[in-house]
């Protein structure tokens, strides 16, 4: 009996060793928890990057937790309250200030200067700046997160539909004006009912407003400026693409079918996309597509659009802060990990040299990848709400703006009706920061 159990143990041990299961881990092994959200493609990409990390740093095991994005904030805050904050977690730029003030996230400044994974001057400055905060205003000072990505939002188009309508896409040196965009969208719109093809999905409000010289807030982010005619005109123009020109789906149709699905079904010719859409479109789009510069406002002749980002923050209470920072840096900047992002069509590399070489040289769509880079280097801006301590004012604007899309209120009526409430919420946010 005794013999048999010994043999059994031996076989089990051998099986474990053969299967690569770390039955006998060397002392000092660490487990780092990492929590994020994402599309199935993003989660697969991160699983690959994590295995690349574990391969390079065998003394660390990563416990990767994914939560649906709608539940993420709830779950994270519950974990923080119960002192079980993940070592590394996703953080939106707009949360850097409250999280840093609460002492929850580690200051990674010294790490950015000196580490084995990357050179800080080879990282998009705009990406790192999203996570800087000097205790007063964002964009300056210490670094509280490393960018998972930088996502310049571009305008994609269905090349086959463009060709059929006899339309040539604009180029960087000769972008369309709003009028040219409208004319093209009208040409592209045809059909009825379920077969209807629209010229464009809803136009980016940021692009329109900024291009027209307006903004939600004033330059130092203390006053709501949505009643400014530059803002109002741009908002009305976006609404009129549906209300007057009928070249974008109605609000009800938008809620019926997501923009992305409409685009891959070939039922809309133009749609705003980010680099994270590339992989999905490779699989889903059965037509040729590319990206083009954003149209310019006739008032200014200038292009404008936002770039987004999600950060990798390191918990201040992490027991292994240096390993956790190292994991964040690896996911953000390691060459293999960045290559995974390219291969899976998830993001453009955070490393400037890789973006300009490896990424631009790939032969998959879009052909005009340079446009993504141009937005980062040239005219891309971070969203206005990432400059404020609490973005409730922005949420209020968005939650009620549908009355403009439906034509129940003009842009002027709407902004006049909501300005005071937004200002009050902005003031509340500013007061919150002071506390």
């Amino acid at each position, binding site marked *: 009996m005794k013999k048999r159990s010994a043999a059994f143990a031996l076989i089990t041990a051998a099986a474990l060793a053969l299967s690569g299961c770390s039955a006998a881990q060397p002392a000092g092994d660490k487990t780092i928890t990492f929590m994020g959200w994402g599309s199935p493609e993003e989660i697969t990409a991160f699983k690959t990057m994590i295995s690349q990390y574990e391969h390079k740093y065998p003394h660390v095991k990563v416990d990767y937790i994914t939560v649906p994005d*709608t539940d993420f*904030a*709830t779950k994270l*805050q519950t974990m*923080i*309250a119960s002192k079980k904050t993940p070592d590394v977690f996703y953080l939106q730029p707009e949360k850097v200030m*409250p*999280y840093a*003030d*609460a*002492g*929850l996230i580690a200051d990674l400044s010294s790490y950015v200067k000196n580490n084995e994974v990357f050179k800080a001057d080879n990282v998009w400055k705009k990406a790192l700046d999203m996570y800087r905060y000097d205790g007063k205003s964002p964009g300056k000072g210490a670094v509280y997160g490393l960018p998972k990505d930088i996502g310049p939002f571009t305008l994609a188009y269905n090349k086959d539909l463009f060709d059929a309508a006899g339309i040539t896409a604009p180029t960087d040196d000769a972008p369309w004006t709003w009028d040219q965009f409208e004319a093209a969208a009208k040409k592209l719109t045809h059909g009825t009912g*379920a077969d209807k093809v629209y010229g464009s999905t809803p136009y980016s409000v940021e692009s329109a407003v900024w291009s027209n010289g307006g903004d939600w807030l004033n330059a130092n982010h203390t006053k709501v400026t949505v009643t400014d005619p530059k803002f109002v005109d741009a908002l009305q123009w976006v609404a009129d693409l549906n209300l007057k020109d009928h070249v974008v789906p109605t*609000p*009800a*149709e938008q*809620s*019926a*079918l997501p923009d992305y699905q409409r685009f891959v079904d070939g039922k809309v010719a133009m749609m705003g996309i980010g680099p994270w859409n590339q992989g999905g479109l490779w699989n889903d789009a059965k037509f040729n597509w590319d990206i083009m510069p954003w149209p310019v406002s006739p008032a200014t002749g200038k292009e404008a659009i936002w770039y987004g980002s999600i950060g990798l923050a390191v918990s201040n209470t992490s027991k292994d802060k240096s390993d956790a920072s190292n994991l964040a840096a690896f996911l953000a900047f390691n060459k293999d990990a960045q290559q995974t992002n390219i291969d899976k069509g998830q993001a453009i590399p955070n490393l400037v040299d890789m973006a300009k070489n490896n990424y631009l040289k790939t032969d998959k769509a879009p052909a005009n990848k340079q446009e993504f880079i141009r937005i980062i280097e040239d005219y891309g801006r971070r969203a206005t709400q990432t400059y404020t301590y*609490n973005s*409730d004012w922005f*949420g209020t604007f*968005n*939650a*009620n703006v*549908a*009355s403009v899309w439906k034509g129940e209120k003009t842009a002027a009526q709407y902004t006049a009706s909501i300005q005071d*409430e937004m200002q009050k919420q902005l003031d509340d946010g500013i007061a*919150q920061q002071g*506390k």
Partner: protein
Amino acid sequence: MRRHETAWGLAFVTPIALQVILFCIVPVGIAIYAGFTNWNGLSGRQDFIGLENFATFLTDKYFWIASGNTLVMLVPIPFYLFFGILLAVGVHRGTPGSGVFRILFFLPYISSIVALVVLWKWIFNYQYGLVNQGLALIGIQGPDWLGDPAWIKTTIVLMIAWKLIGITSIYVLAGLNNISETYYEAARIDGASAARQFFQITLPMLTPAIFFLTIIGVIGSLQTFVEVQLFTADGGRDYSAATITYYIWQKAFGSNELGLASATAVFFALVILGVTLIQFRLSRRWVFEGE
């Protein structure tokens, strides 16, 4: 012997008691305390600010919109009671096809609510949904069930009613089985009609079950949350679908105002308690207390 029994009793009660203390009393205590602070849920800092939070939400336009929406969630209660009783009586008598109805109506109750909402999103999709496609066949353009402020509440209310008909009929069925056959025999000997038997015997004997169902129905409807979160983005256009629990959740996790959320939650709990007490008081007039 007696001491032995007490020990066993305590042993069995302890886990439940611990559970109640840990997951009920302690959190409620923390919430009450947090309601008087400016806690943001992130830092440990909690400054006592008295009744400020209560003043904040009571003067917040969105709190009142949410309160109005929450009241609308009570609308389906009479409907699901009515149809639940109808279903139970039908199933109880063994009407042909009752098995099919049983499955149809019990299914929503045992399914995951997330799956149900996804299903309903498809049924009520503006362009591709079953309902609007059906209406299109008879030449009617259906409304935007999920996007229009006037219709989103209707959609949620319909779904709650549909979901609760099944569980209502289970309780009513249990109530029906408890009614002694002797009453009906006596009634039949006296020549009472089927309708008379129903209104004079069945319905009065069911009142305890119905009372219980109104209590849990009111509390459950007032706490509607998942439907709102899944059907809408940000509580629906113009906050048209947001309920008080949604408001609390948004304040706690969206705006990092856990103190304010706690105060609202405490207030809301007191309101529910009040409503329930009123129901109990009113119940004396209509609930049959037994022979």
